[in-house]
C-alpha cells in the first residue's frame, strides 16, 4: 500500500495562538482515518493545510505525493473536498450543480449515478435552497466525489444532523470506503469515529495526544473493568472472577450487577483534558 498523506512536524500559528504545534501523520491509501478533537484543537487548520487552503509555518507535508502549498490542477483532480459549511448556489437544482461540477474533472463519475448514491434521486430536480440540512450535506458529498477522487476530505460532515440522518450518512461513507476511496474525516463525535474509521488520532491543543485503532485507543482494551452491584463497585483486571465471587456471596443472583469498560468517550475526555504542554 502506498502513502496517501504524509505529515511531519507540522506547525501553524495565528498571532499568539499556536493552532498546530507539531503534528505527524501517516495515512495509507484505502484507509479511513478520523481526526478527533474538541473545537479549536487544530483539526480544521490541519485539514485545510492538507487541502491546500492554508499555508503552514513549518513541517513536511505530502498529499498524494504533492506539496499542497504548490497545488496543480492535476493534483486537484485527484482530491474530493467536503467543507465544513457551504450555503452556495441555492437557486440551482441538485442535478444542475452536480452536472456542472462533473465538468471540472477529467475522470468524473456519472452525475445521475452519484446523485443516486447519495440518495437524492427524488430530489435531483429540486433547488438546493429547498433541501433540508442533511440533504444539503449529501449534495456536498456528491460534489466531493463527482471527480472520482483517490482521497476524500470530510470536515465535520454530520454536525447538526439528527440521529437517523447521521446513520444514513455513515452508510454512504462506508460505501465509499468499501470502493477503496481514502477518507480523512474530522469529527467531534466519538461514535462517528468509531463507526467509520479504521484509525483515529485525537488532537488537543494542536498536538496528537493519542493515535490508533478506536477499539484500543488510549489503552481502552487493556483498561480495568468496573464491576458494580447494589452496595458496592470495584475496578479489576479480572471481572469474571469477581462476578463469580459475588455470585457466591449473594448465593445466585447479584442485585444491580453491571460490568463496564471505559467507553471511547471516557478515554477521549481523559485524553483531551490531561495537560500535554
Amino acid at each position, binding site marked *: 500500500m502506498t502513502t496517501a498523506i504524509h505529515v511531519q512536524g507540522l506547525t501553524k500559528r*495565528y498571532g499568539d495562538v499556536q493552532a498546530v504545534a507539531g503534528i505527524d501523520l501517516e495515512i495509507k491509501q484505502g484507509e479511513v482515518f478520523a481526526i478527533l478533537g474538541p473545537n479549536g484543537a487544530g483539526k480544521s487548520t490541519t485539514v485545510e493545510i492538507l*487541502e*491546500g*487552503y*492554508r499555508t503552514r509555518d513549518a513541517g513536511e507535508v505530502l498529499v498524494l505525493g504533492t506539496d499542497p502549498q504548490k497545488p496543480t*490542477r*492535476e493534483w*486537484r*483532480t485527484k*482530491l474530493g*473536498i467536503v*467543507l465544513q*459549511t*457551504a*450555503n*452556495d*448556489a441555492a*437557486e*440551482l437544482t441538485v442535478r*444542475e450543480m452536480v452536472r*456542472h*461540477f462533473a*465538468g*471540472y*474533472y*477529467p475522470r468524473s463519475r456519472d452525475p445521475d449515478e452519484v446523485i443516486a448514491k447519495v440518495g437524492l434521486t427524488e430530489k435531483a430536480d429540486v*433547488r438546493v435552497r429547498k433541501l433540508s440540512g442533511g440533504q444539503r450535506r449529501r449534495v456536498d458529498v456528491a*460534489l466531493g466525489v463527482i*471527480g472520482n477522487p483517490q482521497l476524500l476530505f470530510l470536515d465535520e460532515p454530520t454536525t447538526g444532523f439528527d440521529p437517523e440522518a447521521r446513520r444514513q450518512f455513515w452508510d454512504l461513507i462506508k460505501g465509499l470506503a468499501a470502493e477503496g476511496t481514502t477518507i480523512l474525516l474530522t469529527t467531534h463525535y466519538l461514535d462517528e469515529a468509531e463507526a467509520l474509521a479504521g484509525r483515529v488520532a485525537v488532537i488537543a491543543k494542536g498536538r496528537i495526544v493519542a493515535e490508533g485503532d478506536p477499539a484500543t485507543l488510549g489503552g481502552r482494551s487493556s483498561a480495568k473493568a468496573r464491576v458494580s452491584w447494589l452496595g458496592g463497585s470495584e475496578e479489576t483486571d479480572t471481572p469474571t472472577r469477581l462476578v463469580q465471587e459475588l455470585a457466591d456471596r449473594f448465593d445466585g443472583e447479584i442485585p444491580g450487577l453491571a460490568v463496564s469498560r471505559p467507553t471511547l468517550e471516557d478515554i477521549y475526555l481523559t485524553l483531551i483534558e490531561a495537560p500535554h504542554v
Partner: protein
Amino acid sequence: MSDTLALGVSRAGLETKMFFREKDGVIFTFSFPIILLVLFGSIFSDQFEGTGITVSQVYTAGLIGAGVMGAAFQNMGIGIAIDREDGTLKRLAGTPMPRSAYFIGRMLSVLVISLLEVAILLAVGVILYGLELPSDFSRWVTLVWVLLLGLAGAALLGIAASSVPRSAKSAAAVITMPFVVLQFISGVYIPFTQLPPWLINISSVFPLKWMCQGLRSVFLGPEGAQLELTGSYELGRVALVLGAWVIGGLLLCLTTFRWKSRRDG
C-alpha cells in the same frame, strides 16, 4: 486554454441562470434605472436651448451608463462578496477549475444582463422620450466599444471592490455608497454645468463619467456636443480612460483578489 474558456462559458450559463432565478433581484435590478428615467423624464421635460435636445434624452444616455455600471460594478461586487462568504469561492478553489474560469463566467454573465438592460432602457427612451437611435454606422460602432470597454472596466473594478467589505452583510452598503456618489458627480443625475470643478476633477478619474460621455455622443449626436464642458465629446479620451481602467482594474484584481473570507484568515 480552450478548456478554461469552455468552463468559463459553462459558469456564465450557471451564473446567469442563478441571477434570473432570484426573481426579486431581477425585478429591482432592471426596474431601478427605468423608474429613475421615468421619474427624471417627468420632472424635467424642457429642452436645451437651440439644440432640440430634451433633458430626458440626456438622462437616458446617462442612465444607460449608470445601469451598465450598476450591473457590472455594484451587482457583481456584492455578488462576489456573497460568493466569498457563502462558500462558493472556497468550494471552487478546491476543485481543478481554472480560477480564471470563474471570472470569465462572471463577466460574460454580466455582459448578458447589461445588454438586456441597455435594450430595455433604449426602448423606454425611444418610446417615451423621443430618443433617436443613431442612424449612421459609426455611432453604432462607438456604442459597442464604449459599452464593452465601460463594462469591462466597471466589472473589473467590481471584482476588485468585492474584496473591500468585511462581510457579505456589509457588502451592499460598502459598494453602493461610492457608486451612488459617483453617479451624482459623473453627470448622470446632475448636468456637469452645475457641478463645481473640483467634483468634476474627481469624477474624471473614474470610468462612469467617460462612459456616459461616450453614450451621449451616440444618442445626442453632433448637436449635443455644445452641451459638453469642452464643447466636444472627446471620444479619444473616452477610449483612453476606459482602456486604462480595464488594464488598471485587471492589475487591481490580480493583486488584491481574495478567495477566502476574512473569517477564514
